């Protein structure tokens, strides 16, 4: 899920603790801030710290002056062959190709388990907003293809697009069936996305801010870990007792609009409801059903109906601006 969804979920988790609400009413925001901060912390640890220290075995850095898709495909195939020969995971970093202050060469990597091949296709030049520069796509020699030494098992998307800022990381690891398991971003959702790390943070927080912080931090952190199980990647739930990332339940993708918005909105309603029920002497009386009815069911229902009516005649494909990075932030700052 996106950062804001995790963050607000952590805040919502904090709102279930009456002491947090009571302190907030007295002007002390500590517990809510802790809920939100630790709700987003697992991703912060990965994306702002850990990934810069994560060592890769192979760095694939295409030459901006002579970018060659076949060379990238060959290097990836070599990495797979290396993984087939050893028990350790082979970690490969794919770099982006920066052509200028605002231009990047886009390319797509695809592992095909059926043909046991890796394909690399060069797309258009895009700007930092990922908008293609017209007529910038090569018409010839834009696809590289290499045979893989062993069959590959996909655990994430079939294709990976590389364009702006930082490129992705792949981990190739041989499994017991003699296949190579493809791990996408092996540095992500490892130790940082475990309940044990959450517990450690909670204990440290508890020592610093008191027992209330312990519960709030654990709740905020756990909500993040649980939410991440809804996607494709899962996480290493009980590091260091478990060694591998669990498989997500594949309900959603981290950048999907609907689940993210639903999470944010439901969290807001829960926060509102908790503030209401923990505030003494309010002149109003309503139930959670009222909150849900007026805050979600009626407006969302009307919106859905209106959208359905307006979209009926429109079958055109949307022009996407892909904000699929974990934070959806690339064009926001």
């Amino acid at each position, binding site marked *: 899920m996106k950062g804001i969804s995790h963050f607000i979920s952590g805040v919502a988790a904090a709102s279930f603790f009456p002491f947090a609400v009571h302190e907030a009413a007295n002007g002390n925001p500590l517990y809510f801030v802790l809920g939100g901060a630790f709700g987003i912390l697992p991703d912060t640890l990965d994306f702002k710290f850990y990934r810069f220290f994560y060592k890769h075995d192979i760095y694939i850095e295409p030459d901006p002056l002579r970018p060659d898709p076949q060379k990238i495909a060959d290097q990836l195939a070599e990495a797979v062959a290396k993984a087939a020969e050893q028990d350790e995971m082979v970690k490969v970093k794919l770099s982006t190709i920066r052509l*200028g202050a605002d231009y990047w060469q886009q390319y797509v990597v695809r592992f095909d388990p059926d043909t046991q091949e890796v394909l690399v296709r060069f797309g258009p030049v895009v700007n930092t907003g990922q908008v293609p520069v017209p007529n*910038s796509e090569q018409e010839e020699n834009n696809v590289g293809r290499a045979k893989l030494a062993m069959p590959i098992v996909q655990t994430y998307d079939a294709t990976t697009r590389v364009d702006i800022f930082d490129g992705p990381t792949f981990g190739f690891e041989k499994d017991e069936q003699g296949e190579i398991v493809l791990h996408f971003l092996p540095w992500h959702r490892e130790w940082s996305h475990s309940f044990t790390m959450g517990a450690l943070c909670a204990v440290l927080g508890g020592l610093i801010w008191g027992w209330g912080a312990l519960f709030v931090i654990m709740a905020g952190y756990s909500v993040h870990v649980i939410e991440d199980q809804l996607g494709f990647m899962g996480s290493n739930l009980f590091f260091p007792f478990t060694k591998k990332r669990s498989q997500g339940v594949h309900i959603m993708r981290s950048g999907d609009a609907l689940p993210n918005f639903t999470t944010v909105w439901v969290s807001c309603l829960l926060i509102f409801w908790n503030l209401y029920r923990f505030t003494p002497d309010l002149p109003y009386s309503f139930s959670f059903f009222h909150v849900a009815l007026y805050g979600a069911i009626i407006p969302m229902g009307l919106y859905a109906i209106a959208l359905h009516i307006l979209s009926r005649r429109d079958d055109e494909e949307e022009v996407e601006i892909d904000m699929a990075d974990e934070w959806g932030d690339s064009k926001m700052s």
Partner: protein
Amino acid sequence: MTNKTLPGHDKQPDDITCASCGRFVGALTRCPHCGARVHKRMSVRACRYAAILLGTVGLFLLYLMSINKDIPIIKVSEITPMMNFAYVRIIGEVVSDPRIYRSGDRVESMRFEVSDGTGDIMVQAYRDIAQGLLAAGKIPRMGDNVEVIGSLNVSEERMTLRLQSEVQLSINHVELPVTSIGALTPSTDGAVLIEGLITSVKEPRPNSRAPWAITVQDAGGEIEVSFWESTYADILERAQLEAGMPVRIRGSVSSYKGTVRLRLASALDIEFPKSIKGGDEIEFTAPAEMETIMIDEISADRKGDVVETEGQVVEVVPPSREKMPWNVVLEDGDARVTLVYWDKVASFLQDRPPQKGDRLQVRGEISTYKDEVQLKVERADHMRVLNRSASAVAKPMAKGRKTRLADITDAMKGSICTVTGVLGDSRTISGGIVYRLSDDSSQMDVVLWDRQMPPGLRDTLAPGLPVEITGKVGDFKGVLQLVPRQEKDIRILDDGGDS
């Protein structure tokens, strides 16, 4: 990659590509591809550091400028809406009693009006700042001269000055001469100071929003003084608020249906001197003797009647939870009636709470609750112990009897106890100091009032000191505390356990 030149690249400056390998390097000064040093034109790098320099140094200069700027003194009449948010100083006289707004135990705000001769302005302090003012005893009184600094908030309808810190209020308390109550008229303006004896205390009914009203008498006459429950709660020596006690009150005069009254704005405006000038000359009228009826005459038919009766206490049931009343079962022969009263009455019973075996004379209103007839007692002085039971007298909470802190209960409120323990941390309150006393069983606050204890005593007391303290059990906001009355009530013990 396309061989065409990308839009804008034809005009791209040279210093963003590596001169050695030709790849894009952006703002980097060393090419990440070939390691060659890339020379930049000064302007780009200079801009970055110039911005940081400008931001930080400029901010520091702005800071110096601000803190060295005198805060202007302005006249109220000169304030215009364009001065909204201005940070100003106003010097004037307080012309209204300060009002303190609370939400539960929390102080929400304090406000009072100040006049500088050209106009009036409301001064407001919110939450922590108001709380800080209260804690520091910085509560202005009508007639005081003040200097206030704050930010202006001007709207079409009113203007206010908002205090941003408790240090921004300076008060020069103006001592008022004592005015004879007989000299007070509805046209008396501003604040006055009276001295006299309390002749009656009228407590508001439980859960009522009515104010407290006490009647004060001096040689010139008597006057009713009213104040709100919140003010009552702030009166530290409220145990002395009873008929016959000398009192000094500062308040503002108001009139209701032609009768002159005095309004007390703050708990600091009431003092309980040991004696008052001319106090002996005041003819104090004691409450009339009660007329007794038999308990068996009390029935539901007389619901609403205020009656007096007498009987033996056979049972005392403290409240089981907050806001529940005390229940005292009174027996006379075969007849029984239950007296009910709330904590407010209980807190006034002091050292004479009814106890099992006592002979009690009581006045109250006949009422029914769940079909049971009961007598509702509204005031502490409507209950009089005629004959204290022998068992009650022999109880360990009798004056001077040593007890452990854990054994002190709500039922002992008003009684005198002696406790041996060790002083803990102290905190200063308005008019005194509070020590945390602990023994091996529990902890309790000990309140030492400045007016009851000599000034040097504070210097001899310190955390960790073993002491034996004799005092009255009271409570403040539901928490029990021990209040010694004089210096000799506190004995400092040596290691052997005695001084």
